[in-house]
């Protein structure tokens, strides 16, 4: 797991429920807005369908690194906070690092203790969708490099 993400998870794990919520809110407030050049990607194709709130993910491949951008409403701080964890912890990671993220990442961040087991579905959706988009973007990138060769 990328060190940046590992660090965030460590920090979250070291807290009780109340502190974890505070941390999550801090993360949610820190999530940078989508850059203007990507603002038009707030569309259905970039929306996470598993989330009730409008959550948008944009993935770019830059050399061997993944650039990650996201938007989620501040009125849904839990999901926005989780998205912010992914952006802060994974922006600049390699494709390989993202595709091999453990499938229990949501549990490792301690979200079930905040949300209860019932409502972590949307977060799994965010993680699954992000992996899928990274895989797709990497494939498109590889194909375009093949063509260029």
């Amino acid at each position: 797991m990328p060190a940046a993400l590992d660090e965030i998870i460590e920090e979250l794990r070291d807290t009780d429920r109340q502190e974890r919520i505070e941390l999550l809110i801090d993360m949610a407030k820190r999530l940078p807005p989508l850059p203007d050049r990507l603002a038009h990607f707030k569309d259905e194709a970039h929306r996470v369908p598993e989330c009730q709130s409008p959550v948008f993910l944009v993935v770019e491949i830059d050399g061997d690194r993944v650039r990650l951008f996201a938007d989620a409403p501040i009125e849904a701080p839990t999901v926005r906070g989780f998205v912010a964890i992914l952006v802060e912890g994974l922006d600049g990671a390699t494709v390989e690092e993202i595709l091999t993220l453990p499938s229990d990442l949501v549990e490792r961040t301690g979200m079930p203790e905040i949300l209860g087991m019932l409502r972590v579905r949307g977060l799994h959706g965010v993680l699954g969708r992000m992996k899928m988009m990274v895989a797709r973007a990497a494939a498109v990138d590889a194909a375009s490099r093949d063509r260029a060769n």
Partner: protein
Amino acid sequence: MSGTYARPEALVSADWVQEHLNDPKVRIVETDEDAALYHMGHIPGAVEIGWHLQLQDQLRRDYIDVPRFEALCSAAGIANDTTVVFYGDNANWWACYALWAFQLFGHKDCRIMDGGYALWKAEGRPMTTEIPSPTPTPYKVQKADEAAIRAFRDEVLAHAKAGRPMIDVRSPDEYTGKKLHMEGYPQEGALRGGHIPGARSVPWKRAINADGTFKSADELQALYEGEIGMKPSDDVVAYCRIGERSSHTWFVLKYLLGYPKVRNYDGSWTEWGNLVRVPIALGEEPGKI
């Protein structure tokens, strides 16, 4: 707006709440979908009651028991005669659910703040992140009449067989059976899609305006009585997926339209869609048994 709500006292405005912020007989309770929202800022003096971790039993699929409910109220500074006003996100979904749960234990004076969290915030009313520590109150559950407002699966089956009115408040795709469970998340899913035979589809959201407030009595009547032909004398069961959205419709029918007999089937689709051998209807037609 000619008609008025049947039990207008059950719905209070944001103005009313603001005027009663320091009223010792009133306790404001926030119940949200998003577990962190309360901590971002809430109505001054409001306590948080979580629908899942606080109102539900964590082992058995049920609500907390009487001693735990009493302890919860006591810690929240709610006495038997306290006016409890619920509000929350998602146009008061969970607020209605919490109100319904409080009614399971027979708490007398429960109300909803119209418009919920979003309207309070949009109007720029006071908010704080300060978490109140109420003085514990004595609380003793008096007379709980769960059977009057809660339906269990066998009762729902009998209800369906008798052809009595039922409302499915989920989205149209869930009703027709197009949407099953989410791939990969069996803990949230049902094995079959569709609806309980005879249930009419009225998505819960149709009862609210764009700002999250409830529609007028006339509009609600046109919806439930005009469109699907229900009558106040009907014995009605409402359900959704786990009983939260249907609490919202339950509140509308019971308090705003004044139907005396409305029950919420909290087992809802996560129970029915997993039960062996119960009948299910597919598609847009209500169907029948």
